[in-house]
């Protein structure tokens, strides 16, 4: 059995590196389209200021992109280095979208980003715009394939377990591709990226306007960010991935946990606006409930029930007991693949194999299960309610705050007097960190809410890790934290320096605060 400490440290390292990587990804995703918009206006109108906008915001985009690339390689490496059993067990399905991402998307994005920066004098206007568009398409396709892979972890469709190869194998590629979870996640995640890009441009433009410098440049940037941001935040909220939450069981469990829904209520269920969940007694000590709302959001209907935590636990108890039979049969089959009786037994319980493996956290031989261990395993199937409940609500609250800001920014942009509204500019400036916080919270809800599984219902987290020593993990974790802290300091320093410098950093001689020629 793998030590709990090893599993916890592996999880911590993955969480730290993934959430760090996700500081840079949303901005990249969003900025690519903003650059496309700015450059399209340049190509259509021929006004140099739009070219300067593309180049200046592109410069900041580049500073961010460098760290996105740096930290992205970590993610790919880490499946192999720290999650070796996971890689073996589901690589047949999970590896394919990652490899296709490289072939179809990342090559495109990375090749054209080079021409985006270096090709201004060597390409015609239209050619350069095409380069920028292909870079944006590559970036977004990249997100699509990664979320197809991630969606499969939440809702593992199109695959079956083989006891000969001792792993999951793909049986239907199209099911993996068109996994409804993946589609919902893609739309929600890239929209959140667009919002992040828009907020970035909006805030920094507001900063210039508050200082009264580079006014034309800032005004034009602000308007584009306001319009793009408003459209994007509407997309995030309306097409929020809650629509996907009734699709798979993983999402039902996650939904029940993040809503602190202990009981299965008669449809349509109410929405807990605020609650104090009591995990021990499985009830809420206090709750303000809005009737009907949860049922309508969660099922898009008035009559479909949403299962509560207690009901899900009872179902899971049955599945663990059935899964135990599957594990016993599988272990016998590994020793003697010709055993027909065991084969039949295994086929009967195969669907619950993953639930049986939950017992492996406590037992080498699952047949020795006691009522106490069974109870622990059942409790394991529900992620911790309190952090999910509050993270989700905070994310939603931030979403509506941004809706308000972008709404106001758009209205006054249309009226044309936003530059005279210091309160609006100041709100835009102060809300700069909000999209990042929401993105991290959303990612946390999605991944923490999937626990105790890496692949829902298929492979428990505690079995997925590499058999490394705890000391190796301490060492690598310390290395990552050291490198990442250093990189963040350098990145923030440059980002702040160039954002403060403004378009003068292009050295064109057309702006305030020009960078002196060395």
């Amino acid at each position, binding site marked *: 059995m793998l030590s709990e400490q090893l599993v916890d440290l592996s999880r911590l390292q993955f969480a730290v590196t993934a959430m760090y990587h996700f500081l840079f990804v949303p901005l990249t995703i969003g900025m690519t389209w903003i650059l496309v918009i700015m450059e399209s206006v340049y190509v259509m109108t021929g006004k140099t200021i739009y070219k300067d906008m593309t180049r200046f915001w592109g410069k900041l985009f*580049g*500073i961010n*992109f*460098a*760290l996105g*690339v*740096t930290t992205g390689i*970590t993610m*790919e*490496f880490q*499946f*192999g*280095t720290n999650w*070796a059993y996971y*890689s*073996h067990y589901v*690589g*047949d399905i*999970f*590896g*394919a979208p*990652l*490899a*296709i991402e*490289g*072939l179809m998307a*990342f*090559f495109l994005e*990375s*090749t*054209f*980003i*080079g*021409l985006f*920066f270096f*090709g*201004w004098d060597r*390409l015609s206007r239209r050619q350069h715009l095409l380069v920028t568009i292909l870079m944006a398409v590559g970036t977004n396709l990249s997100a699509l394939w990664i979320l197809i892979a991630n969606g499969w972890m939440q809702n593992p469709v199109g695959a079956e377990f*083989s006891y000969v*190869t*001792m*792993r999951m*194998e*793909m049986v239907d*590629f199209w099911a993996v591709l068109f996994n409804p979870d993946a589609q919902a996640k893609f739309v929600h995640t890239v929209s959140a990226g667009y919002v992040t890009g828009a907020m970035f441009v909006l805030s920094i433009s507001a900063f210039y306007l508050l200082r009264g410098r580079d006014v034309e440049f800032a005004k034009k940037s602000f308007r584009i960010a306001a319009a793009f941001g408003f459209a994007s935040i509407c997309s995030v909220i309306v097409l929020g991935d809650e629509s996907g939450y009734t699709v798979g069981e993983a999402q039902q469990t996650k939904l029940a946990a993040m809503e602190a829904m202990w009981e299965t209520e008669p449809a349509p269920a109410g929405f807990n606006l605020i609650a104090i969940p009591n995990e021990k007694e499985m009830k809420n000590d206090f709750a303000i409930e809005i009737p009907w709302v949860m049922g309508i959001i969660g099922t898009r209907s008035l009559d479909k029930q949403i299962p509560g935590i207690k009901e899900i636990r009872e179902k899971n108890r049955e599945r663990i007991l059935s899964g135990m039979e599957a594990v016993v049969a599988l272990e016998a089959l*590994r020793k003697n693949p010709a055993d027909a009786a065991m084969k039949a037994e295994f086929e009967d319980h195969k669907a619950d194999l993953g639930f049986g493996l939950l017992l492996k956290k406590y037992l080498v031989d699952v047949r020795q299960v006691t009522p106490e261990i069974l109870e622990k395993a059942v409790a394991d199937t529900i992620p911790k309610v309190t952090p999910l409940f509050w993270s989700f609500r905070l994310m939603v609250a931030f979403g509506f705050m941004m809706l308000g800001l972008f709404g106001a920014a758009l209205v006054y942009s249309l009226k044309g007097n936003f530059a005279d509204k210091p309160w609006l500019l100041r709100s835009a400036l102060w809300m700069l960190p909000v999209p990042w916080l929401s993105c991290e919270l959303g990612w946390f809800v999605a991944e923490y809410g999937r626990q105790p599984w890496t692949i829902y219902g298929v492979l428990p987290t505690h079995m997925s890790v*590499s*058999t*490394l020593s705890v000391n*190796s993990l301490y*060492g*690598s974790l310390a290395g990552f934290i050291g*490198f990442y802290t250093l*990189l963040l300091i*350098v*990145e923030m320093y*440059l980002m702040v320096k160039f954002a403060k410098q403004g378009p003068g*950093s*292009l050295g064109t001689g057309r702006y305030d605060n020009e960078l002196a020629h*060395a």
Partner: protein
Amino acid sequence: MLDYPSLKIIWWLLVGVLLVGFAIMDGHDMGVGTLLPFVGKNDVERRVVINTVGPHWDGNQVWFITGGGAIFAAWPLVYATAFSGFYWAMLAVLWALFFRPVGFDYRSKIDNPTWRNTWDWGLFVGGAVPPLIFGVAFGNLFLGVPFQFADNLMSTYTGTFWALLNPFALLCGVVSTAMITFHGAIYLMHRTDGAVYARSRTAMMLFGGLLLLTFSAAGLWLWQGIDGYAITSAVNPESLPNPLDKTVVRQAGAWLANYERYPATMALPAIAYAGILIAMLLAAQGATLAAFVASSFAILGIIGTAGASLFPFIMPSSSDPRASLTVWDSVSSQLTLNIMLWATVIFMPIIIAYTSWAYKVMAGKVTAAYIRENEHAAY
């Protein structure tokens, strides 16, 4: 759908193609990074060196990422066992690679000699460490790696990081670093002029010679001093992958058996030697583009030689030889191999087409004048 045995062989070849592609494309900018502090003596010269790969390093790095993804998808057991077994070696590669994106992008954004010099050495680390470690890892494949599988195919590595640094593996590390630096020096000659060109030419002769010497030495050592591995049970290429379902022994001369069995494979070391020599000759005469093509062939020959010697092994186990990973028993399912084949067949030509276009757009020498004109835009 293609039959399983063909797919298994095709994927061995395709992983080879991706590795060779990685070494040719990402390799030349790693070579440039390795040479950077030595061929660039002042800031403008160093910026010249960096800007020869400035527009391309990012796209080239995707060869590496896609290679990793392809091994994950096509050989999941290899990906799992190698990456977790070589834990600290992999982390060293990863952390060395950290210096590249930030080194390229951030270096020239601040006009301070200490800042710039620090990133120059960062780019050196990012260029020199990965080929060195990949070479060392390859060397260890020939010696066998101490890992075994539990009944449920969970792998455990029982060696240490320091055990990887044995003399033969280190020699392979030098082969690999010399190959990449040689290739990078030729690329630099092609894209620069003046003093940088002259220093790159010296580096080309130096690393070309070193490559010839170390490649030959490694070959002799392999022939005389290292026991190979051989499968002794019957191989059924049709069978579903299960690495525990075979017997394997260590055998003197086994790593050279393929050259007897399939004499055509002798073309690979021949291509390696011819590639190195022709590249040196052409580069010395200033035919740099042709030399680059020749050194690309040299890379194909060298990596091909390593792969052909190991075939059908990918990663032999020294502690439990029957657990060795081979082309036959560490692959994905037939369906996945088939889908991945189609994805590669469709996208690889497209990638090569737009990468070529990007190089064409940026073609020509990077000069000191270019750097001065593009002070704020260039790297």
